[in-house]
């Protein structure tokens, strides 16, 4: 079977956000980059599907040249090939992103002569959190889509997939014919780390580059702001076990014991 997984490069912020002086972006000068945990799980799920059922996997991202770093990471974990939809690094809204992904999928499927049986997305991107790119791609391709899943099983014989979504107090079960689209939530699996050998072989794996046209944006970010933060001093109750009586006192004061 063929699986495609879509990921997005985002800054890996630490303990707080620093914004650029014009307030339009996160100051990334001292930051590493990563993808959403949901997407890490989507990548893991793609690798497992191929390990179980055979076939090939592709990882795709729309972003600047630097996003090949995230593609390489997925390749190092076991994805077979990468596709970069290269942009100038500016922000694309989810309609534009979905459109570019749809065009790329059509092109890749025409080239390989078969549809991707499974398209995997994160439930939402870490930074923008639009919650819609995967659903839009599915609808544009006319394929069934189950969003926010935490379990996936594919039956290659009868060409169906069973997916589970967590709801308060339980699970909803969906069964859909393939090809289909799934958006994944963290918790569906525990992602692996790349092996040393994986990192070496990833360097030799192919990354295809495409330059999608940039359409007009319908949703335009004008500025970022920090929400009001918890203020006030942290009262240090002490160091080591000597602090325990103070903790107990505090717990009493707070009515917890």
């Amino acid at each position: 079977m063929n699986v495609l997984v879509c990921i997005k490069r985002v800054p890996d912020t630490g303990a707080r956000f620093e914004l650029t002086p014009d307030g339009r972006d996160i100051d990334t000068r001292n930051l590493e980059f990563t993808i959403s945990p949901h997407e890490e799980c989507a990548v893991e799920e793609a690798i497992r599907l191929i390990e179980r059922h055979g076939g090939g996997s592709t990882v795709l991202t729309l972003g600047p040249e630097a996003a090949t770093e995230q593609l390489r990471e997925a390749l190092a974990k076991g994805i077979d090939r990468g596709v970069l939809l290269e942009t100038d690094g500016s922000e694309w809204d989810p309609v534009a992103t979905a459109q570019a992904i749809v065009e790329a999928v059509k092109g890749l499927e025409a080239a390989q002569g078969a549809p991707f049986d499974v398209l995997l997305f994160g439930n939402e991107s870490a930074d923008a959190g639009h919650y819609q790119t995967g659903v839009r791609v599915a609808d544009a391709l006319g394929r069934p889509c189950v969003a926010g899943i935490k379990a996936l099983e594919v039956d290659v014989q009868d060409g169906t997939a069973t997916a589970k979504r967590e709801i308060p107090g339980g699970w909803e079960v969906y069964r859909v014919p393939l090809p289909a689209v799934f958006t994944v939530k963290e918790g569906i699996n525990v992602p692996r780390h790349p092996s040393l050998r994986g990192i070496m072989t990833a360097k030799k794996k192919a990354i295809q580059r495409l330059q999608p046209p940039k359409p007009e944006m319908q949703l335009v970010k004008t500025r970022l702001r920090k929400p009001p933060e918890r203020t006030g001093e942290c009262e240090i109750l002490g160091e080591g076990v000597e602090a325990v009586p103070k903790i107990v006192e505090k717990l009493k004061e707070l009515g917890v014991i």
Partner: protein
Amino acid sequence: MSAVLGLVEHDQGKLNEASLEMLTLARGVAQALNAPLEAVIIGAEEAQARALADALRPYGVAKAYWVRHEALRDYAPLAWAKGVAQLVQQRQPKAVLAAGTDRGHELIAHVGAQLGVVAATNCVEVRAQANGPWALTRLRWGGSLLEDAELKGEPKLLTVAPHAVAAEPAPSPATEGVELELELEAFTPELSDSDLVVRVVERVQAERKGVPLTEAKVVVGGGRGVGSAEGFKMLEELAALLGGAVGCSRVATNNGWRPHTDQIGQTGVQIAPDLYIACGISGAIQHMVGVKGAKRILAINKDPEAPIFQRADYGVIGDLHEIVPKLIEEIKKIKAGQAG
């Protein structure tokens, strides 16, 4: 006159809080546009739809549409969204709003895809105007950042971030000349079999054990500093003594020490206890966004420079493997004293 539509969510005929919050924000949008606020009800029996409509009245809703179809009783995301999209095409509303829940996000995404317009999700503030783009503020990074944005396209599609506005009934419901019953208009969409491919085929109930993390008054959280699955036993014990629940950071989940259902933060759960005790957790922004609702935070960390101390109310500097067992011992003594 074209209206502002709110897609309300209900559980067996009971409106959820997020929908009422959404309607409260939607009412402000409608007022700014001088347009009526109308609601859309899907997946309900007629009597249920009637009861829901009446429950919507205090929120300033002028009219409700009941999207009616044999196949829409249980959740089928694409079919539900097609119902909404067809209603939108017929009624040409100014805007469609949903709650920023899993279901609200999924529906609005499909509606947007059907209509070819973008959706602005997790909005906390919307400055609507009759013509041209709208200015709005939405959440980014799971709520760690705010984004001011401009939304184009017609109609405007939005979801409202949970807890962003408090659900409030309309201030002074006009009592004179207003019918007591809310107008409920049935709308029957045209659906094909392919719209119903994705639907719930089965529901499974989860087994419940202990206090759920989201409802606990005290949460004891553990991170990398706990060191192992074994290490969480003492956190379990502490939580049990305090009548609370155990949560964890992503590092603990990724190391397989705890199930993902225990993870607190941007891609885990958001908690709102009276007290959060963070043990061996550094205080990454994606973790802390999950404990924004905590009234008090007590941090136990061996690194005095750990960022968690900038966000905590109380701090203890030291090794949790020494402090937590001692704390358990002391609390047990007190409990024994109280009992005796």
